[in-house]
């Protein structure tokens, strides 16, 4: 269901009444156990260390959750009706509507694409794989199995191999980034960054040993990019012996087989050379062959075993980060005993719950969205001397928008209607250049740049969206009969809120004083709202 259907949904009183009854008890589950979101709030409130912000206004919440779940800014009409709607639990209905929206899968595909690939490159099959996975709400452990041990013969899922191929591709003279691949398996799926333990035990993180890096290397170090097909695909060379390595400090040779950090070593079955394959590779038809012992299959099984708390903690922490703007463990890929979670019991709880719910991502996101912690305002409590610490979650954190969101919402609010795919691809590339991080840089925080400031101020294409065109925002505003209505409509359309009295006066003053065509002054006012800090972040 899309947001356009929102009013009709809200307008059905009987359905609503039934739901209200049910929702009234929703903080208790069927067996009377406290719901996850209630337990989250309790654990957060235990350690706030100070006053918390008030609950977000309906407008702030509507904007936040729409950006989070469907990368979308509600229209002025939808915003108005949500703000005026008096249905109790309307927030919960909104959450459920958005989670059922087709755009949810697109949004989550963007989030996980940026997290897992870190903008190394792009591939349509990978995006399609992510979208269909989130569309069917595929459990995270299933996804990881498909990503870590990709199956080239399965047309629906083969795009998952892009996790490997994006790192094994050659860029210019750079060799395949095998160390990056090893590191990212640890970072993305276990929340540990063992890069600094490649040549020796980590210098100041006791938990990260060289054998942890080398053990991961034994799993994925034999993967090779397949050149014979157009879609992302890899093959594996047989692993016959353990990996030998030496610390640059000690110089003593050590060995390890495939092994997850801190886990048991997996035995490499004895195989004679020439007998490693179940189905040998066939060069004539370019079939890669099937190994008897496949380290990446072993990896996919070891990673997702239910007794692997690192795996569930990692995804719980990342989902928390998506919604709250900060990991319970920060940085996200630095889980170790010297860097405990800000709320250890909470992380344990989330990790346990996601296992119990069979790695149901949508369920977890829904619980997070229902929490007061998520629904707090980004406006700080009154009378405090210092901004609350981010890790206290007393005040909602501002979060960055992805470049994919930027182009969507800027077109959406201005009413820029182009549907030509070629133009859209060009524009996306342009927005990526401005708003996306360089390859291999995680996108974690709000990061304004001079580049973006110049782009928003002067880019011809973006500015043209604020020119009056049939049916676009400025056109709609121009057709309103008084200045107050224009200002209110502009604020609602762009910032999802009404202006304060002072703001309204300032805007009216600007419009009245402007020497030039009315539509130009309205266009510039709309631009000022869209180029503001408030528009720049998800707050």
């Amino acid at each position: 269901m899309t947001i356009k259907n929102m009013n009709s949904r809200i307008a059905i009183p009987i359905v609503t009444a039934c739901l209200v009854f049910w929702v009234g008890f929703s903080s208790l589950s069927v067996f009377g156990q406290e719901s996850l979101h209630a337990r989250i709030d309790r654990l957060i409130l235990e350690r706030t260390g100070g006053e918390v912000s008030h609950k977000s206004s309906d407008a702030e919440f509507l904007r936040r959750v729409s950006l989070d779940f469907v990368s979308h800014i509600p229209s002025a009409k939808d915003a108005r009706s949500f703000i005026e709607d008096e249905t109790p639990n309307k927030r919960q209905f909104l959450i459920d509507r958005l989670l059922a929206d087709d755009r949810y899968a697109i949004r989550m595909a963007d989030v996980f694409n940026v997290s897992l690939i870190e903008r190394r490159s792009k591939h349509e099959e990978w995006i399609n794989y992510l979208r269909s996975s989130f569309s069917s709400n595929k459990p995270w452990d299933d996804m990881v199995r498909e990503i870590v041990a990709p199956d080239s013969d399965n047309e629906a899922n083969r795009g998952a191999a892009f996790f490997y191929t994006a790192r094994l591709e050659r860029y210019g003279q750079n060799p395949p980034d095998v160390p990056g691949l090893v590191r990212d398996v640890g970072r993305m799926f276990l929340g540990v960054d063992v890069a600094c333990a490649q040549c020796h035990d980590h210098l100041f993180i006791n938990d990260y040993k060289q054998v942890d890096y080398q053990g991961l290397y034994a799993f994925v170090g034999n993967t090779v990019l397949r050149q014979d097909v157009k879609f992302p695909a890899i093959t594996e060379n047989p692993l016959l012996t353990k990996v030998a390595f030496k610390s640059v400090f000690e110089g003593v040779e050590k060995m390890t087989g495939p092994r997850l950090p801190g886990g048991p070593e997996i035995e490499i079955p004895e195989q004679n050379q020439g007998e490693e394959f179940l189905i040998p590779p066939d060069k004539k038809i370019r079939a890669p062959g099937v190994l008897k012992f496949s380290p990446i299959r072993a990896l996919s099984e070891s990673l997702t075993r239910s007794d692997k708390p690192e795996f569930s903690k990692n995804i719980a922490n990342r989902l928390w980060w998506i919604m709250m703007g900060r990991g319970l463990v920060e940085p996200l890929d630095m889980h170790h005993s010297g860097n405990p979670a800000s709320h250890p019991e909470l992380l344990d709880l989330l990790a346990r719950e996601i296992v119990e719910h069979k790695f149901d991502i949508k369920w977890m996101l829904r619980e997070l969205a229902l929490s007061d912690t998520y629904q707090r305002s980004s406006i700080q409590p009154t009378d405090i001397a210092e901004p609350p610490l981010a890790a206290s979650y007393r005040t909602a954190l501002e979060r960055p928008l992805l470049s994919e969101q930027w182009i969507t919402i800027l077109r959406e609010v201005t009413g820029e209607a182009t549907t030509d795919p070629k133009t859209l691809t060009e524009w996306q590339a342009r927005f990526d250049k401005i708003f996306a991080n360089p390859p291999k840089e995680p996108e974690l925080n709000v990061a304004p740049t001079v580049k973006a400031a110049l782009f928003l101020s002067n880019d011809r294409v973006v500015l043209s969206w604020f020119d009056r065109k049939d049916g676009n925002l400025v056109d709609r505003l121009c057709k309103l009969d008084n200045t107050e209505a224009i200002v209110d409509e502009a604020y609602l359309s762009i910032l999802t809120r009404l202006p304060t009295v002072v703001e309204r006066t300032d805007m009216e003053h600007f419009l009245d004083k402007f020497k030039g065509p009315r539509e130009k002054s309205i266009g510039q006012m709309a631009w000022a709202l869209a180029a503001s800090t408030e528009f720049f972040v998800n707050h």
Partner: protein
Amino acid sequence: MNPNSSLCMPNEHRLSRRRLLGTAAGAVGAFGLGGLLQPAVANELSKKDKQVLFIWIDGGMSQFESWDPKPNTLFGGPFRAIPTSVPGVHISELMPQTAKQMHHMAIVRSLCTQDNSHSAGVARIQRGDPKNRGVTYPYFGSAVSNLLGPGSSNLPSYVWIKPGSGGFIHEDAGFLGPKYGALAFGDGKPPENLMRPESISESEDEARHQLRGIVNAHYANRRRPVVSEANKYVFDTARTLMHRRELFDETAFSERDRERYGTHEFGRHMLIGRKMLEAGVRFVKVNSYGWDTHGDNFNGHLSLMPKFDQAYSAVIEDLAASGMLDHVLVIAMSEFGRTPRINGHIGRDHWPESWSLAMAGCGVKKGVVVGKTNDKGTFVDSDPLDIGHMFHTWFRALGIDPNETQFSNAGQPLPIAHDDLHACEEVLA
């Protein structure tokens, strides 16, 4: 809340790697220097308005064909040495103009550094090769930008004029965080989108940005200052650059200047560099590529050196004449020198064992030569100086005591220069 409570992780204080500006807490260490918004100490230093012109000769300039000629010796090559404006000091005949400016500058002939590959050397030298502490040290430009701040010009504090493309080179900043990265002007050209569209008049532009300010002020009220301040900073910088478009207007240079500096790329870039210094940019890096003369070294230097000589001597002459040399530190160097041995391709290879650099201004002694190499120029024949010594020396020239001042890496104090080395006192006035 007590900042020492258990919820306060070091990361709380770490800047996003790409953020151009964060909280004051983000970058300010125990010593209190650092944030762009850091008032007291940074202002105190910026009053002195010390600036740096860092001329990077990428690929490795040959010391034999420049600062340390050895004519008529086994490895000396075909070029002669010529006298300079300082009696007794000789440099290569490929630098006749520079020879006339010798009385403003100092030469260090006893460099002995660690790395002979470009890939490691360029970064290692520009990061001052500190002891390995498991963190990425900032390039000199980022370090100065962090320690001295942007000054009063409102312009970005670390500007890099380079051939090829430009952009925001945040990698230079290492652990200091991206706001100390370089703003690179590719071919001296302004960044994209610097020009206001013709459809918007100057007063309209002013008015729309003012309006944006009103919206922002409302938003900033009672919200965490970090994001609002960062956003204000980037828009202000963008606006400053827009207002200073003349910095990129090469037509404004006089015909005489253009001739003196040279109409070639390096000359043009040096002239833009001078303009950036005049405009108050704290640290300007000007770059010349293509010095890796493994083959045909002598013809290579015969073609490269005159361009360097022309632009370098012109900028020294101008900075001296305007008095700016009193507070502008000028450094010209590569990542290493070139081998004494002349290879089978009549080239010289990489040689970190004994090589030279030139420096001037900002309290550097005038007309001195520090250190020497042996007769054949194969090794240093005085106390060898590593790049760490040079970093100590430069920081001292800039009024920063490297033994008292530290960087802060998320609260971890780190020395600004190699802690086992020291400044070269001989060259400091």
